[in-house]
C-alpha cells in the first residue's frame, strides 16, 4: 500500500441552496520519499486537497490514508495530534510569529513534539546559522521561508506539505527554496508534497498530480526528475 492515498475522496460545500463540489472522487497515491507536486489552476481544488491531507478539514466521502492510518476517520482531537506530530507545514506567507526570533519560531514547533531535532541544528541545516537570533522582520522573504521550513522539519514529520512555497518570493529566491526542499527529499528521504499553480516546476517532481475542475486530470510519474537549477519560469 502506498504511503499516501486518496480513494474517491469527495468534498462538498453548501452555499445556501447550491452545493459546490470542491473535490469530486479524487484518487491518487504518493510513495514514501517521493517529491510530489499537486498542480492546477486556481479553483481546481488544490486547497481542498491540501486541507484534507493536512488534517485541517475532513472529507465527505472516500478514504484518505497516510502511512497506513485512515486519517479520514479521525475526529478533531486526533486530527490535531496528526498535524502536531505527522505533518510539517510550509506556508506561502511563511506565517512566522513576529514576536519570536528565528530560533524561537522553530522552538514553537519543537516544544510540542515528541522527539524533535534540535532547533539550532535544523536552522544550520537550512543555512541560517548566522540569523538564528533575528526577528522575522529582520529577515528577507527567502530567509523567512527557510525558517518556516526549519520549523516544519524540526519535528521530524512524516510528510512535508508546502503550500505555494515560492508564491511570495522572487525567481532566484524561489529556486533556492525549491532546492532546499528537493535536497530534503533526496538526502533525508522526506516525503515532500508541493501544492502550486506553477506548471514550470513540475519537471523536478517524482510524481505530478494535475487537478482540474475538482477532479484529478492526470497522475504522471517522472522517472528522471530535472535538477532545480535547470528549471526556468
Amino acid at each position, binding site marked *: 500500500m502506498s504511503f499516501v492515498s486518496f480513494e474517491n475522496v469527495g468534498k462538498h460545500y453548501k452555499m445556501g441552496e447550491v452545493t459546490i463540489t470542491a473535490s469530486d472522487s479524487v484518487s491518487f497515491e504518493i510513495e514514501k520519499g517521493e517529491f510530489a507536486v499537486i498542480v492546477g489552476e486556481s479553483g481546481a481544488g488544490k486547497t481542498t486537497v491540501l486541507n484534507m491531507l493536512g488534517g485541517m478539514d475532513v472529507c465527505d466521502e472516500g478514504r484518505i490514508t497516510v502511512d497506513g492510518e485512515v486519517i479520514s476517520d479521525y475526529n478533531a482531537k486526533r486530527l490535531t495530534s496528526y498535524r502536531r506530530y505527522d505533518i510539517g507545514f510550509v506556508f506561502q506567507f511563511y506565517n512566522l510569529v513576529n*514576536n519570536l526570533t528565528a530560533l524561537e519560531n522553530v522552538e514553537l514547533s519543537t516544544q510540542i513534539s515528541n522527539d524533535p531535532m534540535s532547533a539550532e541544528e535544523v536552522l544550520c541545516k537550512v543555512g541560517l546559522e548566522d540569523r538564528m537570533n533575528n526577528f522575522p522582520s529582520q529577515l528577507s522573504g527567502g530567509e523567512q521561508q527557510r525558517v518556516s521550513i526549519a520549523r516544519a522539519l524540526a519535528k521530524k514529520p512524516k510528510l512535508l506539505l508546502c503550500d505555494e512555497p515560492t508564491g511570495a518570493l522572487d525567481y532566484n529566491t524561489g529556486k533556492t527554496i525549491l532546492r532546499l526542499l528537493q535536497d530534503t527529499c533526496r538526502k533525508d528521504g522526506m516525503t515532500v508534497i508541493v501544492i502550486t499553480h506553477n506548471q514550470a516546476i513540475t519537471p523536478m517532481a517524482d510524481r505530478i498530480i494535475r487537478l482540474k475542475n475538482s477532479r484529478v486530470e492526470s497522475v504522471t510519474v517522472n522517472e528522471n526528475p530535472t535538477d532545480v537549477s535547470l528549471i526556468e519560469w
Partner: protein
Amino acid sequence: MTDKHTKKRKNAYTKDIFREIRKSLSRFLSIFLIVALGTGFFAGIKSTMPDMKESAADFFEENHLMDIKLMSSVGIQYEDLQAIEDMDGIEGIMASYSCDVYYNYEGQNQVVKAMSYDLDSDSDSDSFLNRPILVEGRMPEKSGECVVEVTMKTPASYEIGNTLTLSSPSKDTSITDIFTTDTFEIVGIVASPLYIGFERDATTIGSGSVNSFIIIPEDDFNLSFYTELYIKLSETDGMEPFSDEYTEAVDRWCDKLTETFKGVIAARVDKKLETTQNSINSMEKKLSQLENMQKLDIVGLYDFCEALQAEITELESKDGTLHSIELSQKQALLKQAQALVLSREAGETAADDELSETIEKARLEIESAKEQMSLVSEQAVYGFTRFSSSDYASYAGDSEKIDAIAKVFPVFFIFIAALVCLTTMTRMVDEKRIEIGTYKALGYSSLKIISKYLIYSTIPTAFGSLFGVSIGFKVFPYIIYNSYKILYNIPSIDTPFRVGYAVGCTVCALFCVWITVIAACKLSLSSQPSELMRPKAVPPGKRVLLEKVTFVWKRLGFLSKVTIRNLLRYKKRFAMTLVGIAGCTALIMTAFGIKNSISKVADLQFEGVFGYDALAVINLEEVYDDADAEKVLSEFEDVSQYILMSCGEVEVTASGNTQPASLMVPKNPDELDPFIRLRDCKTGEKLDISDGEAVITEKITQLLGVSVGDTITVQCKDKPDVTLKIAAISENYAMHFVFITDNTYRSIYGDSPVYNQSYLILKENTDKTELSSSLIEKDEFLGIAFLEDKAESFFSSIESLNSIVWLLIVCAALLAFIVLYNLANINITERVREIATLKVLGFYDGETSAYIYRENILTTVLGIVLGWGAGLVLHRFVVLTAEVDLVMFSREMVWYAYVLSALLTVVFAVIVNLVLHIKLKKIDMVESLKSIE
C-alpha cells in the same frame, strides 16, 4: 449640487456607517459600554448631592417647616404671637404646646415629647407649620387620640390601636396637670419635618434625651401658656434650604426676631409685674390693717369699727361705682372686726384664731407673689433656626461628602474610557488603512476621511453617555441615599433626569473620543496613499530587558516569551488593561474595606473600649448620697461589678475649634478599667488618669488638632470655663470623651462631681428584662440601657451598606469585562493569522487559548497588585471623607478585602477568557493560508 443629490449621498454615507456598526458590533459595544459606565458612574454620584438636597428642600417646603423657633422661660401667650405676627416679613406663625413626659415601656421610663396638634388645622393656611407626614393610619380627630413616630429606637408597642399611658416626670405634678387625660390611643404613625435625623431634643428628665415624639390634640394640653412659637419667613421663600443665602437670612432674622420677642415678652411681663406689684401692695395694706386690728383691745375695736363705718358712709355718699372695690373691702373688714368684737365679748377665741389664720395666709400669699415676681423678672428668650438641629446641618454636610468622593472617580473613569476608545479606534483605523489610502488616492480631504470615524465613534459615545447617565441618575442616588437612611428619615428621594449634567457628560465624553479618533487617524492620514495601500509593516519584534537575564529567559517557554514581548510591544493596550484591572480590584477592595472599616467601629467600641454590660441612670432627685445608689446596686445579685460615674456634656475648645464631648469623672479612677478600657491610641498601653490632667479620645484630638501636652478649654453649662492639659490620647471610635479624676474635678470646679450614671458588669445569663424592671422599681434609678442592644442597633444599620458594596462590585465587574474583552478582542482580530497558524501546527484548543490568555493572565495579576495599592489609597480617601465627626472609622485595610478583590477580579477575568475560548475555537485554520491583507 441639488438637494436631491445631497440627500442621496448622505443616505449612502449613513448606510455605510450603519453597516460598519453592524459588522463590528463588539467594537461598537466596547465604546458604548465604557462610555456608559464612565458617565453613569460620574453622573450618578455627582447627582446624589443635589438630589438629596432638593428632595429635602421639597420635603421641607411641602410640610411647611418653620424657619425660626422662639421660646421663652415664661412661656408664650396669644398676645405675644399677635405682636410678632404684626411684623413685616412673617409668612406664617404658629404657637404650640410641648411637654416631655414618661412612657413606661418594659419597665423603663422612656422620655416622650408630646407635641400639640390643632384639630382644626387648615391645610391652606400658611400658619399651619411643621405639618406631620402621615405614614400610616390617620391624624387625631378627638381628645385622647395620638399619633406616634416609629424609628429604630422607639418602643415596639408603638402600633396603631395600642394605648399609651403617660406619667409625669415630677412627683410634684400629676400627669393630669399637664394633659386632660393620661391615656392616648395610637391612631396613626407620622414623621415630622422637624426631625430629619435620629437626634431628638435634649431634656432635663430621665436619661437626658428624648426617645421619640408623639402628637396629641392641642386641647388635650392643660398648660396655661404655649411653649413654642414657630415662624416661617417670606424672605426665605424659594431659597435653597442649605445655601449660604438661606443661612445668612435666617441668622439675621433670628437675631431680629429674638430681639423683638424679648421686647414683647418684657412688656407683657412688666405689665404683669405691675399688676402683681399692685396686688401685693393692696395685700400688704390689708395685712397691716388686720395685724393692727389683732393688736387692738375691745375698746380699740369699737373705735376701729366706728371709724370704718364712718369711712363706709362717706364712700357710699360718693359715686358708688368708682369706689366699689374699696367699699367692699372695707365692708369685709368691718364684718371681721364686728365678729371679733362679738366673739371676744362672748369670751370665745374662735374669731381670734380665724384672724391669725387669715393673717398667716395673707403673708404666704404675699411671699409667693413676690417670689413669682422675682422669677418672672428674670425671663429669658431663645431663638433657634433649623441649623440648631445637628441633623439638619449634617445632612448638608453628608451630601457634600458624596460630592467630594465624586471628584476622584471621574478622573479615573475618563482616563480608562479614553484609553479604551483610543485602542479601539486605533485598531479600527489600522484595519481600514487600505480604505483610507484609497480615499486619499482618490483625492478626498483628510477631514472628509476622518469624519467617517468621527461619526462612527459619535454614535456609541452619545448613546452610551445618554444610556449611562439615565441609569446613573436613578441607581446611584437611590442606593447611596438608602444607606444614608440609617441616619436620616426623609421619606423618599427624587431622582430627576438632570439635563445639564447629561449634556455636560455627553459633551465631555464626545470630546474625549474625538481627540482619540484624531490621534488614531493622524498617523494614517499623514502617510502617503501608496504606503497605506500596502499592508501595514508589522511592528518588529523587540528584545526586552528581561532577555539580558539569560538564565531566566532561557527557562521560559516560547509562550512566556511571546507573552512578555507582546505586552511590551503594545504599551497602550497594556496600560489600558492594567489600569482597568487595577481599577476593578481597587473598587472591590474599597467596597469591602469601607464596609469593614465602618462595621469594625461597633466591634472596636462595644467590645474593645467598652467593657461594661449596662448603664444605669441615677435619679438625682432621690439620691443625695452616692452610698445610697451603691447600696442598691450591691443588693442586685446579677450585678457583679459597678462604678459610679459623673457624665456631663461639655464643649471642648482648642486652637479655635470646638467639639462636643462628654466629661467623664469616675468615682474611683483606678477601678475604671474593666468598664471602660483606656488604651494609648498608638502603643496600646493601658492608660491611667492622673490628678490634674485629662485623658482624651483620639478623634476629637484630630478634629481639634491637638496632641499630648497641649491644653484644651472645657466649657460646661452653668460652670466656669476651665483649661486642662492632655496627658494621654486614648483609643476610641464613637463619640468623644474627656476623662478626669474626681480630685481634678474638685480642684477645677471647687465642688464634688455629681455621680449621675453607674456602669455595670453583669453576671452571665442575666435576665435583662427582669433586671431592668426591678431596677426601675427602685426610686434611686431612672432606667437602664444595655450595651448589647446599642451594639445591635448599630450592626443592623450597617447592613444597609451592603447595597453600596454591591453597587461598587457591579461597576468593577463591568469595568473588568469591558476592558479585558476589548483587549482580547483586539488581540484576536489582529492575530487571527497567527492563531490559525498555531492550529495548523497542531496546537490543541486549550493550548491555543492559553497562548492568548497568557497576556490576560499576566496583566490581570499585575493589575491586581497595582489595584491593591490603588485600593489602599482610595479606601483611605473615602473613609476620611465619609467619616462623621463623632465617629472614627477604622483606617486599616482588612485582609479579606485583599483576597476578595483579587478573587472577584480573577473570576471576572476567567469569565471573559471563557467567552474568548469559544471565539478562538471558531477561528478557521484556512485563515493561515490567506494572503496578507
